[in-house]
């Protein structure tokens, strides 16, 4: 009897270790999640290959389109994670900057004939100018008050877009935004757009990676922990917060511009509170203070919403239940502790099996 159990242990243990080794090759490092992002690893090459090959393996256009959206959400969440995850400030109006990016591109390309490539950069800059104007007074607030104020800003932005019909097309929006193009190469299929969006995302991940390993990132993280100590070493706290807010808005502006070119329309409903909350959710679900976290969060939530849409009336309750379950089992976020949690779950399953055996 005992020998039998012993044999089973060894068989299963080999299986576990194999599974864990495979996982460890793919998933982000569980410990030192701030530090682990500092240099590129073999794992990153794996991610890169996966990103490049994925649309070729699955040639379904719907899947491509979904991945384009996930990439755009990833850029949004990446921007917010600087402000929310690293600098520790909450914003519930991030969708407004996405909207500003979309409308900047829409107006510049359809009315002023700007090429999308230039409008793309202009969108980011315009969004961060708005962030400067909004953030200057708002960022004096903290915690819940900041959350409420940014939420209010998002709603005001929505009303302004809807009411100024002559400039933004009102409730109907702006149509006929051209495809994105660089030097005559037009991104007119979902597959091409996929590569466009994900290469922009990869570029921004590298940019963010450099940012947080430099003095800028250190200052962000310092502000998140204690403001008194941060100002005591000569760091201008409110300027750092404003800077993080503007960088986040810049990313959102770029994402908005890509969104405009992919959808070829700009309508106000897209930038409601729903999107703001969704971005925050992506950052939290993916793991705060982690670079890959928001992208994991963006992928999962985009896929989840799309999949649940087929259940129509039940989709929202299901969505809620799944989110709650994910937050219970992955409280640190999926990107941060996925490996640790999976190891825990697998070994838990193993321990349970053993207990049953012994009880027999």
């Amino acid at each position, binding site marked *: 009897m005992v020998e039998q159990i012993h044999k089973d242990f060894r068989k299963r243990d080999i299986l576990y270790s194999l599974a864990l080794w495979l996982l460890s090759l793919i998933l982000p490092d569980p410990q*030192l999640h*701030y*530090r682990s992002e500092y240099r590129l690893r073999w794992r990153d090459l794996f991610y890169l290959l996966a990103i490049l090959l994925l649309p070729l393996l699955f040639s379904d256009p719907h899947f491509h389109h979904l991945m384009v959206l996930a990439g755009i959400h990833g850029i949004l969440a990446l921007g917010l994670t600087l402000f929310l995850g690293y600098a520790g400030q909450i914003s519930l109006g991030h969708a407004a900057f996405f909207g500003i990016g979309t409308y900047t591109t829409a107006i510049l390309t359809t009315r002023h004939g700007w090429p999308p490539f230039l409008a793309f950069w202009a969108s980011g800059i315009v969004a961060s100018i708005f962030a400067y104007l909004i953030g200057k007074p708002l960022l004096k607030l903290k915690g819940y008050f900041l959350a409420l104020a940014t939420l209010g800003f998002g709603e005001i932005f929505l009303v302004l877009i809807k009411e100024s019909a002559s400039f933004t097309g009102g409730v109907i929006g702006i149509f006929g935004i051209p495809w994105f193009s660089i030097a005559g190469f037009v991104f007119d299929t979902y597959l091409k757009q996929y590569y466009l969006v994900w290469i922009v995302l990869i570029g921004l991940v590298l*940019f*963010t990676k*450099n*940012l947080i*390993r*430099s*003095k*800028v*990132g*250190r*200052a962000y*993280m*310092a502000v998140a*922990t*204690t403001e*008194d*100590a*941060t*100002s*005591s*070493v*000569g*760091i*201008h*706290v409110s300027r750092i917060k404003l*800077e993080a807010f503007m*960088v986040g808005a810049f990313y959102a502006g770029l994402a908005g511009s890509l969104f405009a070119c992919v959808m070829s329309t700009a309508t106000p409903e897209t930038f409601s509170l729903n999107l703001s909350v969704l971005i925050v959710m992506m950052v939290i679900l993916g793991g705060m*203070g982690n670079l890959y976290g928001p992208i994991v969060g963006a992928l999962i939530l985009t896929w989840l919403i799309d999949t649940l849409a087929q259940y129509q009336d039940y989709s929202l309750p299901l969505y809620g239940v799944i989110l709650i379950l994910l937050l219970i089992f992955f409280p640190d976020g999926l990107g941060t502790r996925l490996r640790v949690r999976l190891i825990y779950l697998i070994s838990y399953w193993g321990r349970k099996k053993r207990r049953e055996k012994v009880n027999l």
Partner: protein
Amino acid sequence: MALLRIQGVTKNYEGVKALDQVSFEVKQGTIKGLMGPNGAGKSTLFHLISGIEKPDLGKIFFKEKEITFLKPHEISLMGIGRTFQTLQVWGNMTVVENVMTAMHSRLRGGVLSSGLWLPWIKREEDRAMKEAKEILEFLGLFGRWKWFAGQLSYSEQRILEIGRALGTRPELLLLDEPAAGLTYGEAKDLSERLDQLRKKGITILLIEHHMGMMMEIADEIAVLSNGILIAEGTPEQIRTHPRVIEAYLKRGREGCSESEN
């Protein structure tokens, strides 16, 4: 020459007088001790000097320039570094990064150049890393440089706070109970290092309950009680000062009667 001059500083907290007409000077290149029973207003005075709070009355001068109403980061940039009584290290950063963060204002580079990792950003980072390691070496924390600050023991975090203050290259160092929670040996090491800092020309204003250490290294001591400066002088003068003895003993007696009730 007086590096720091405090002139008639008064601070009220909703009717409670935390500081009442306090005036004293800290001379360049000396260690000045600040003593007093709990609640005497020592930490409040530090908050006022470092600009986290503003006085109701009075003025504070640093290098003969008024700093009373400057913001905390501006005061830090003028050359005043400080530590906190309640530990405020950045636990989610490594030890060496804690010190490097203090060098923020001396490093070149903004968002764009850092994000693109331009060649000179790397040089700046290496320079900061080297300097931070030197500071850690001096404080005896070098063996821990890769650790997360949150993983350090209580006393090591206290030392790290000093390291962080040194990272700003201060002329005046405000230390709020640096030896609290340290063992006898650690406190001994600390006072030796403070002595070395004084020799390097850094002026220190020190709050400490550790009597022996204070008497040993302070050039001058000021004693606060209930927000009033009751005595000032050399350690020998303070040791025998009647009002100091009275303040400490009276406080002790009250404490006893309170605990009996």
